[in-house]
């Protein structure tokens, strides 16, 4: 439709784009979403074949730089100790996420007021609460009511099984008197809205062949498409274009054949994640916006936040059946979540326990850590490791710093010749202290649970799963890129709805909050349709 002007053009079909498309569909507006990837075929996910253990290191790996899929764009993250993970397909990174689905805490929106650092959000928990609830209904969230770490909330599904591993670790937390709770998980633990129940396949992070994990290609998108939203795949957007008044008037994109096309729109919504979004904005240069669209504040790409992660593992004497069950979803602890200045750092972290390793991962870990011998004694040393591992990743709150940023790489390009993002990121002193603290506490609880040996890696280099802060939200156009409902200060028909708009990162996985924000912004758009650009 080269000459047709669509009402709403969404760029990116991941967590945020899907939720907004679904919500706006009831307006009967003409809505089109452009996605650079394609629909995934769950029947081809790794767990359906004997090479399931290896494909997570290959074409279904976390890093776009290592996967080699044509729909990926390379990212120069050589100047960062944490490397970006993402996925480009219908559903975006929800295809590979672990589906750990916590909410932010109320205090996460008031960091400046409560702890004197970073900034407060211009919105709060109570405002987002109904959208968290709505998102839980759409995604299907397994959990257990009564967690004292949160205001009351009602999960839609029973919790994921603890299994022997979860019980073992839960006893360790109890021994220390620490908080723990079954993880809120975007996993259908029983049949839900046409999705088959989880059958404990294990590696959720290479795609869920069962369809139990709530990636948005199996949750929001089928409903949105039935309601009339058009989702165009293999369309890679190069830039957002502006009219003579500096308003967004559409995008230039490349179709599957590499042909450059223009799509006009009344409203453009960007949902490309905390790295892809600043990349697109910075690539959208015009006489109105010589430094990139919506960048008069100079803050597009600045304040990049990852979550610095630690991994702490323990070796146990008994088999734990750890190869079964959702990899990243079992139990979590927020014993050290809220600020306690006596710890030597501000803000806090969540411990998220992991299931154990599969046979091949056990061997490779044993080899790299020098615990697995070859030749005589191989099997004996392997049996010391196999199904004896349990542990956690610890997700530390990152704080916004302008020096941590996404810019455009002067040389690197994707397959369509579009400049790639470059990441400059360093760990803050606060993060380093928090990592040190959480590694010590992680080892302590694993030992309390019976681990005879513990291991740690911090920061975890592969853990650039959460990309936030690079087009932050705020009421002051000098200090933020979008207003309190996602509209760019500089371009009133341009919205940003992904993790880029986070003001702070909290110490939990962001997807649930990204989607709650997206639903909230969609509602604000609907409420303000008559004077959306005022």
């Amino acid at each position, binding site marked *: 439709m080269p000459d047709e002007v669509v009402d709403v053009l969404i760029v990116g079909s991941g967590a945020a784009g899907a939720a907004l498309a679904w919500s706006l569909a009831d307006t009967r507006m003409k809505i089109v979403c452009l996605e650079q990837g394609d629909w995934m075929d769950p029947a081809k996910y790794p767990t359906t074949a004997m090479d399931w253990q290896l494909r997570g290191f290959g074409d279904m790996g976390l890093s776009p730089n290592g996967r080699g899929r044509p729909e990926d764009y390379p990212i120069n993250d050589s100047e960062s100790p944490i490397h970006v993970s993402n996925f480009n397909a219908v559903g975006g990174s929800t295809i590979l996420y672990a589906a750990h689905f916590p909410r932010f805490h109320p205090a996460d929106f008031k960091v400046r007021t409560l702890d004197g650092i970073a900034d407060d959000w211009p919105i709060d928990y109570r405002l987002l609460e109904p959208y968290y609830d709505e998102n839980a209904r759409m995604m299907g969230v397994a959990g257990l009511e009564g967690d004292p770490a949160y205001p009351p909330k009602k999960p839609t599904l029973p919790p994921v099984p603890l299994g022997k591993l979860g019980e073992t670790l839960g006893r360790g937390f109890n021994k220390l008197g620490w908080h723990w709770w079954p993880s809120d998980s975007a996993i259908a633990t029983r049949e839900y809205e046409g999705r088959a129940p989880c059958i404990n396949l294990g590696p959720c992070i290479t795609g869920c062949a069962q369809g139990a994990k709530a990636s948005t290609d199996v949750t929001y998108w089928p409903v949105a498409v039935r309601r009339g939203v058009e989702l165009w795949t293999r369309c890679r957007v190069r830039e957002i274009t502006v009219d003579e008044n500096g308003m967004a008037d559409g995008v230039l994109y490349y179709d599957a054949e590499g042909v450059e096309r223009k799509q006009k729109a009344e409203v453009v919504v960007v949902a490309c994640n905390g790295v892809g979004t600043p990349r697109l904005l910075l690539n959208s240069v015009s006489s109105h916006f010589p430094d990139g669209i919506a960048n008069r504040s100079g803050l597009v790409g600045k304040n990049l936040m990852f979550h610095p992660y630690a991994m702490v593992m323990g070796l146990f004497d008994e088999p734990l059946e750890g190869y079964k069950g959702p990899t990243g979803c079992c139990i979590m602890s927020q014993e050290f979540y809220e600020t306690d200045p006596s710890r030597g750092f501000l803000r806090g972290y969540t411990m998220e326990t992991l299931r154990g390793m599969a*046979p091949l991962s056990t061997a490779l870990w044993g080899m790299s850590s020098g615990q697995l011998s070859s030749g005589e004694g191989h099997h004996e040393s392997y049996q010391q490791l196999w199904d004896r591992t349990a542990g956690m990743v610890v997700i530390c709150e990152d704080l916004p710093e302008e020096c941590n940023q996404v810019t455009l790489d002067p040389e690197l390009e994707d397959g369509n010749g579009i400049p790639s993002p470059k990441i400059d990121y360093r760990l803050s002193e606060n993060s380093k202290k928090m990592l040190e603290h959480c590694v010590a506490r992680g080892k302590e609880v694993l030992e309390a649970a019976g681990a005879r040996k513990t291991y740690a890696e911090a920061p975890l280099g592969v853990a650039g799963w959460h990309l936030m802060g690079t087009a932050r939200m705020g009421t002051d156009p000098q200090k933020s890129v979008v207003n309190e409902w996602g509209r760019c200060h500089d371009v009133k028909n341009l919205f940003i709805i992904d993790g880029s708009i986070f003001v702070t990162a909290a110490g939990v996985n962001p997807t649930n909050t990204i989607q709650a924000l997206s639903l909230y912004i969609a509602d604000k758009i609907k409420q303000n349709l008559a004077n959306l650009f005022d």
Partner: protein
Amino acid sequence: MASGFSDAESSTLTSVLDEIIPPSRDGKLPGAGELGLVDYIADAVEKSPDLKPAILEGLSTLQDLSGGRSSDGFSALSKNEKAELLKELATTSPAFLPGLTYQTYLGYYQHPRVLEGLGIPGRPPHPKGYELEVGDLGLLDPVRARPKRYREC
């Protein structure tokens, strides 16, 4: 030559694989050579330009060294002799054993017979999946008894 290796290379490689992962004493787990991983290694060698010269050179050296001890090659040597030659090879062809060991682990720990030997089904996880106990949620009683842990604001 079906594997891409000559018969002599295949024979030597099979013996080396059994040295890297021998059969388990209880008989539940096969040796890597016995498992027929030569074809897997041949495939890996073809896909990896870095690995290929190291493996081919190592096999050639091993055959040469073995020839001085037995006309029937490496596979006919005693356990101790094989260990000695592999130790020697670690000096003369340092890339051989690490590269081969890594590939052997990749092939071995994905094999259905090995998965079954470890006590798990020798099949992909999907579509049958696994049973997993819900677990004892009563373990949460002490946590429930504690006061709320979040800050109101």
